[in-house]
Each structure stands twice: as structure tokens, then as C-alpha cells.
């Protein structure tokens, strides 16, 4: 992976911001869904869809593409937004999220939207599917394969036993072209992960299962990109990138608060912003980068 130039970083920042705006717009329109996770992962999605992935939005079925498996399907607003901005489908379609007849189901359904790699929602199954895909690819192409299988997971879903079944299998099979990305935002529905079911020491857990593990700031494009480059270069084991993210990132009144996990603007706690104003304030914050840009929006 080549080092990111300043211009590229600027482009990625712009894309991430657009993705965040779309996420908020979609959720306001849908009136239900998840806010914190999608905002927290917007930078990771921007980096993948506009820099990392070997893919062709105009030919989503291209057999040589990298596979991106979203295991924690509930953060799909950020997946849909990234895909729309990357050119998979019109950005306007994002407003159909969670509506009757929409391809953008509340949790991704591969049959409705074949350009997603799998259906997901029930947690803990994505890594197994990535392992299955990588095993099939190895049967066909051996270790010289050029494809990568990326699996995005939430930290909360690491509570699921199935994740560890898949982690063991990938370690045993030394599937070097599997790269997992954990959204380490420390929250889940009922509270902080370390209160609900402690995950630490997380890095050591995966290492002991035979994985190469990198920890990185999930909002730092350079650091993330470097980590992925390192992971791609590891040939003898699968890699896990623990991306430390801020849930709700980009909208100040949502940041770091587990209350915003499964609700949308207009439903959140009112200690900072009144319900009726949450949508407008969130969009304004994103459009003005938290007030740093004094623009026509004010």
C-alpha cells in the first residue's frame, strides 16, 4: 500500500464527511436505525471504498474483486452511503432506507442488493463467511491469490462464540488474505463493552489464536492505511486490525455515548440538544465541521 498523499487524505476527509451527512439524512428519513456505529466507521469506509478496495462499482460482480464482508449489519447506513458515493447506485436511493420495497433493507439482504457480499444482522457470522470465501479461493488459486477478504466487525459482537470458532479456523488454516477490521468503539446496546462483557486484552486474544494484530486510530487515514498495508504483507497468518473509533464521530452531541447506538436524531437524550433539533444540529455540525466553517448554512 502506497503512503497517502496530502491530496488523497483531503479527498478521503471530504468523502467521509459526505458519507456522514448521508448517514444522518438517511436516518432522519428512515426514522429508525443506528447512529453511533455508522458515524464512527465513516472514515474506515471512506478509506476502503476510495482507496483500499480492488473493486469496480460499475461491475459489482467482477470475480477478481476483493470481498468486503460486513458482519455487524446494523451499521449498514454507512455501507450504503459509502457504496452510493462510490458509484454503486444513485445517492438519492439512500432516502429509501428501511422503507417498504427498498433495496436498502434495515439490515443488508444480498438478494435485494446483490452488490453486498452477504446478508447480515444477526451478529457473529461474518468472519466465518469470510473464512469460507478465502478457503474457496485458496482451493482454486492457492497461496498466490491476489484477492483480499476483508471482514468488518463490531467489538460488541465479539461476545458471540461463533466469532472465536471462525478465529480458530482462520488461524489454523493460516489464511493470510483475511484481514479483519474491528470497530473498537467500546459500546454496545446495553452499555460499555468492558461493563457488559470485557473484551480486553483483545490484541492478545487474537494473537493467541494465531493472528497478526495491529491497533490503530480508526480516524487517522495514514495510520489506517499503513496498518492495512502491513496486514497485506503478512503472509503466514490472518490479520486483525483493531480500529479505535469514536462512536458518533463528527456529531459532537452523539460522540462516545452508547445511548446513541440504536436510535436516530430526534430520539436521543436531550441534555445537549432538544429532540426536535437533533437532526438539523447534526447536519449543521457535519456541514460546518463542528462550526469551524462559517458558511451559508448558518
Amino acid at each position, binding site marked *: 500500500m502506497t503512503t497517502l498523499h496530502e491530496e488523497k487524505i483531503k479527498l478521503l476527509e471530504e468523502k467521509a464527511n459526505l458519507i456522514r451527512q448521508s448517514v444522518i439524512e438517511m436516518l432522519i428519513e428512515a426514522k429508525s436505525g443506528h447512529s453511533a456505529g455508522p458515524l464512527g466507521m465513516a472514515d474506515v469506509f471512506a478509506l476502503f471504498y476510495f482507496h483500499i478496495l480492488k473493486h469496480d462499482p460499475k461491475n459489482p460482480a467482477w470475480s477478481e474483486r476483493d470481498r468486503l464482508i460486513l458482519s455487524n449489519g446494523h451499521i449498514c447506513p454507512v455501507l450504503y452511503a459509502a457504496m452510493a458515493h462510490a458509484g454503486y447506485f444513485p445517492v438519492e436511493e439512500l432516502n429509501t432506507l428501511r422503507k417498504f420495497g427498498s433495496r436498502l433493507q434495515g439490515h443488508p*439482504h*444480498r*438478494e435485494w442488493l446483490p452488490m453486498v*457480499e*452477504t*446478508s*447480515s*444482522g*444477526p451478529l*457473529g*457470522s*461474518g468472519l*466465518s*463467511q*469470510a*473464512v*469460507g*470465501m*478465502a*478457503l*474457496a*479461493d485458496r*482451493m*482454486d488459486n492457492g497461496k498466490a491469490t491476489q484477492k483480499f477478504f476483508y471482514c468488518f466487525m463490531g467489538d460488541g459482537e465479539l461476545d458471540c*462464540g*461463533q466469532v472465536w*470458532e*471462525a478465529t*480458530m*479456523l482462520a488461524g489454523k488454516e493460516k489464511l493470510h488474505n483475511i484481514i479483519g477490521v474491528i470497530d473498537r468503539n467500546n459500546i454496545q446496546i446495553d452499555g460499555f463493552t468492558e461493563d457488559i462483557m470485557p473484551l480486553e486484552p483483545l490484541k492478545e486474544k487474537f494473537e493467541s489464536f494465531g493472528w497478526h494484530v495491529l491497533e490503530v486510530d480508526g480516524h487517522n487515514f495514514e495510520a489506517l492505511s499503513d496498518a492495512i498495508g502491513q496486514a497485506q504483507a503478512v503472509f503466514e497468518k490472518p490479520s486483525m486490525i483493531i480500529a479505535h473509533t469514536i462512536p458518533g464521530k463528527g456529531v459532537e452531541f452523539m460522540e462516545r455515548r452508547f445511548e446513541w447506538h440504536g436510535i436516530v436524531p430526534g430520539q436521543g437524550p436531550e441534555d445537549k440538544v432538544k429532540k426536535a433539533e437533533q437532526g438539523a444540529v447534526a447536519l449543521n455540525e457535519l456541514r460546518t465541521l463542528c462550526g469551524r466553517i462559517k458558511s451559508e448554512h448558518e
Partner: protein
Amino acid sequence: MDTLNPKLFDKDVEQLPIRKGYGDGLLQAGKEDERIVALCADLTGSTMTSVFSKEFPKRFVQMGIGEQSMASVASGLAAMGKIPFLASYAMFSPGRNWEQIRTTICYNNSNVKIAGAHAGVSVGPDGGTHQAVEDIAITRVIPRMTVIVPCDAIEAKKATLAAAKMTGPVYIRLAREATPVITTEATPFAIGKAQLFFTPREKAQVGIIAVGALVYNAIIAAHELEAEGIYASVMNLGTVKPIDEEAVIALAQEIGALVTVEEHQVAGGVGSAVAEVLVRHQPTPIEFVGVHDVFGQSGEPNELIEHYGMGVSHIKDAVKKVIGRR
């Protein structure tokens, strides 16, 4: 009848475990199509997956005791164009991994085949924990799933080969014990097609619809009843889903009273599937032979079949009872 085992009524009728047919079918399917791959959760010997894995070690994934992951790994393999066959005991797959089968296989419409071995109380001494008597119900309720319950090893081989050739998720139910070989290589088999396996010499008063190894008990019951002047025909349903509606309705129409026979909970199983068809098209009195809302226990297979009311005498009693309800 011509195509069934000519020694069917002999005391020393040949016996083979139904699961053997799965192993043989999987091996042959694997030779015919290199997209076929197999997965197993630490039970390669008893599920007969070893027949395949020895021949094609590179097309086999040893999961360890991880049935949930096995279902999803199979979904991933299928997403890349493989045709995965996964096997474990029915209690664990589709028992333990039902949600993974629903979401990552059926909801995705993945081309994955699931073999559930050691189904029914005839697992025997292992006891109730290992006796899956709910698997037909929980698989047939999932949209897109095809559910096949072969009656012997030969039919199991044909079912495995047919599953390999059709696109979409399939569940094949297998049993542990050696059971009578009912069919021959020449017996026709097609997914979704029921067949009459026994026709009495006079007009039937009762139609018996059976699946699995109990098809043998049903045939013996009908045969013995004939000597008593009671006439019953026996249909091997074979595929529980999609059920052969035409054949089931025709049988009910022609005869007017039915008995269903399955080594499974009566709730949600084959009897339910038959009743669901008939109440809409041809309301017919039915007696259900099967497990009635209890768990199994340790014992010899035949002992348990008798204890839970699925022996030849129970089928005969059910036939007599339903005649009174015509």
C-alpha cells in the same frame, strides 16, 4: 413394487445404515463435479464424510466442534461458487446452528447442502440429548429449504446426488443404525416425488404415508394387516418439502383415511406437513404415528421405537383406529 428389494419380507433382509448412502453419494458427486466440497464438525467417521475427505483432502474443511461456524463457512464457500455439503449430528446441525442456517444459508439463498446424521430415537444408548426428533420441523419452516428424509441407504445416495445437482439449500436427514434396504438401484427417485411402496391386493381402506427407516415398519404393518383382511397402502414421501401435494391429495381422495409415520415429533413434522395440505384440499381423518411431545432416552433402537409408539403394532393400531373414523 417391482423395483423394491425382492427380499423385503425375508427375515434376513439386508441392512445398511442410511448414512452410508450419504457417504457414497457425496463421493460420487465429488467425482462428477469438482465444485463439490465437504465440511464436518469432528464427526467425519460417523457422518461418513470420511469417504469423501480421504479421496479429496483439499476439498474438505475440518471445522472442529464448531457447527455454527460450519454453516456460515459453507455459505462463504458457496458465495465463491463451491457446492458445500456439511455434516454433523442432526441435533447439532441443524439443531445448534439453526440461525446460521436460516440467515447465512437460506436468507442468502446459498447453494449449501446439510446432512443431519443420527436423527431420531434410534440413535439408541446415547440418550435423549443426541436424539434429534425436531429437525424436520425446524428445517421445513425455513423458506427455500428443501427437506429430504431417505428411507434407506440406496435412497440416501440418490438423494445426495440429486441435492448436488439442484441449486439451493437442502437438508438431508440420516439415521445411525443399520436398517432394512427397501429400495434397489432401479427404484426411481426424484426430489419432490412421493411413491407408493406397497399396494394391498384389495382396495385400500387406509393410506400410510411414511418417511425414513420407518417406511419398513409401515410396509410390514400393511403386509401383516393384509393377512387380517385389513387393507392399507404405503407411500414413501421421501421429500417432506416441497411436499408432493398431488400425490398426497390423490391418496387421500382415493382412500379417505390416512396414517402418517415418522421418527420425529408429531408437532411440526411429516404428519403436520401432510395435514397442512389436506385440510385445504381434501379434509381427511389422519392418525399420527411419531413422538408425542416427549424427549428420548437411552435404550436399544428397537426398544425405543416400541416404547415411543412407532413399532409395527402401533402402526397397525393406528390403521385400525383411523378406519373407525372414516
